[in-house]
């Protein structure tokens, strides 16, 4: 097994720390999951919100998840990002930043033994004081589930690592400009 050690050491090598806020910044986080089968908006699964919170905390931000009950009904009638951000500001409670992850998972097909879903994501980070400075990325994440019974929540959870990466990139831009 000695021949494995160099590879294992490389795998465990420390990573460069991410860009951080100079002081802890209260940040409001909301996830809004839509479905092709329903007009209802729900909170994303815990795995997705945990991934967002973890990314924010690593950058010296103080994330606080907004209870979906506070925005689900409003978001069901607001299909675009801008009014949703304005709605979230009313619940920001003194936070400096807003993070909104809007995601719509859609079953694609069975592909070589996996169930392929595509999660359409719009990810936004904005200072609460000026929503005109919002930074937004829109992207699709293909995910591959092993079982038929796994549906929208599992697809969103599987997309979390990619969403994390996009959030990191957005935060680099936002924190660099603060």
């Amino acid at each position: 097994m000695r021949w494995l050690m160099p590879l294992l050491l490389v795998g465990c090598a420390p990573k460069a720390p991410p860009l951080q806020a100079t002081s802890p910044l209260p940040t409001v986080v909301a996830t809004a999951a839509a479905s092709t089968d329903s007009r209802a908006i729900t909170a994303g699964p815990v795995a997705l919100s945990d991934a967002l919170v973890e990314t924010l905390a690593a950058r010296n931000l103080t994330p606080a998840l907004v209870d979906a009950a506070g925005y689900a009904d409003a978001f069901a009638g607001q299909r675009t990002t801008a009014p949703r951000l304005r709605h979230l500001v009313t619940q920001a409670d003194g936070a400096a930043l807003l993070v909104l992850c809007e995601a719509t998972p859609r079953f694609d097909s069975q592909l070589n033994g996996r169930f392929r879903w595509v999660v359409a994501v719009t990810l936004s980070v904005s200072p609460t004081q000026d929503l005109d400075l919002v930074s937004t990325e829109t992207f699709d994440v293909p995910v591959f589930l092993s079982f038929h019974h796994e549906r929208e929540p599992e697809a969103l959870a599987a997309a979390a690592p990619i969403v994390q990466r996009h959030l990191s990139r957005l935060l680099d831009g936002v924190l660099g400009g603060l």
Partner: protein
Amino acid sequence: MLSLLLTLGLGHAADADVGGYVRVMTRPDFQGGDGKLGYWNLYGRLLNEGPWVALQLNLDLLVPDPGTDAVWSRVVAKLEGGSVWATDDGNGVLGDYRLSQLYVEAGNVLLPDVTWQVGTLWQSFGDLGLYDMRPAQIFFDTVGLSGRYRTDRAELLLGFGDSGYRLKGAEYNTVFTPGGTARVRLGSHAELGVGGEAFFEPQVTGNRYAPHSTPDLAYEDFLRGEMVQAWLQDHPGQAINFPDPQPTSAASYKAIAYAGFGGLGPLVWNNLFASFRRLHPDNTVTETVDGVDYTLYVTDLTDQRYELLVGDELQLRLVPGRLDVVWAGLFGRHWDLDNTLAPSDHNRWYASTVLRLQGYVSDTVHLLAETSVANEVSTQGNAYRLHVDSIFTSTDGVSDTRGLEYGDSDTRTTWQAKAGLVLNPLGPGVYVRPSLRLLYGLQYSTQNNAFGNSFVETLDQYNEFGNVERHWHHVLALEAEAWF
């Protein structure tokens, strides 16, 4: 085709998305094999499969509007094949690829929550990942129309179409194929599904590609390719009176079932699949006697072939984030009630089990170990050569040059072990991809040289290359696999 569809999509501002699957590897084999550890994926798909590439284009013609009953539509085209430059003897030639799926889906047309599909109709209840097999699938051969109604708890699919080109190729004749599946979710921990399809090929007098049977043919002569010779011996000088084929019809079917349960403690999920099918009969064989080609119609000699296949796969998260286990089993039983004389793939049973452990040194560095045991038994005489000189022996060590058996045993037993290092950029999980793998594989088989090879098997005294007795086989593999 994909380029055409992409161009079409861009021209109409539709959404296009390309997905797919790739598997590419090199497996140096210093024992003279072709790079696969054993013959087939009954021993686990790992190290027993070659390269594969699939590209699937999804083109939204009308994008679904979430939560509404607005009409939507899309085109799906899948191109796939098993050859990649420098990895196999095809060297990536496009002749090894095919457009395996092409269909148009439309939703909320005529009926709400119903998805219509026209084109290829393939459907599966799921996959045995360790075997890369899908026992519970229907419409693999069929082009037609299906309608799928889905709710949170249940799904119903009905369809019909034609399987003639897939089953009969250039000897096309319509094979009408109706079928369907039903699946229901029981609570949050279980699912059940059943389904089936039937194939009916009608009698068409005058169509040489429709099912026919040439009368007065003996099965043993069919096996030996001596039907015409035998008839002419029985009817000397009457070649002109060789019997004409008689038109008939042909039918076959497949029934599938599925049960899944999980989400209980360390049990992630267990999938149990089963299928039972009657194979569609062959139509013709050709024999040449005295320079004359005779086309013989063999529908009634090949219409009693049956296959049962049962497979189970269990996924366990033994130590979360540290160790996952997947355990699978497969049983197959094939009958050919027409053939009571000779061993064949249609008269056998096989059973195997595969166990894979994947441990996570870190999120991206994993260790993999897998082992499998398999037994394959011919139910109609010997089918396997256990030794280098098996060609001289048949049952009880007696040479029989007119015998219909092959080799000196009716059983092949195979054991495999594989282990190595896996790099998973997306983190832990037995089925998380992409995976970059460095693996060593070891096989023991009771059959001599039980892997793809180019060995000279003859024991002729003029064989310049010699023969070798070998039951252990080693392979080193460097491979990558990804879905996208």
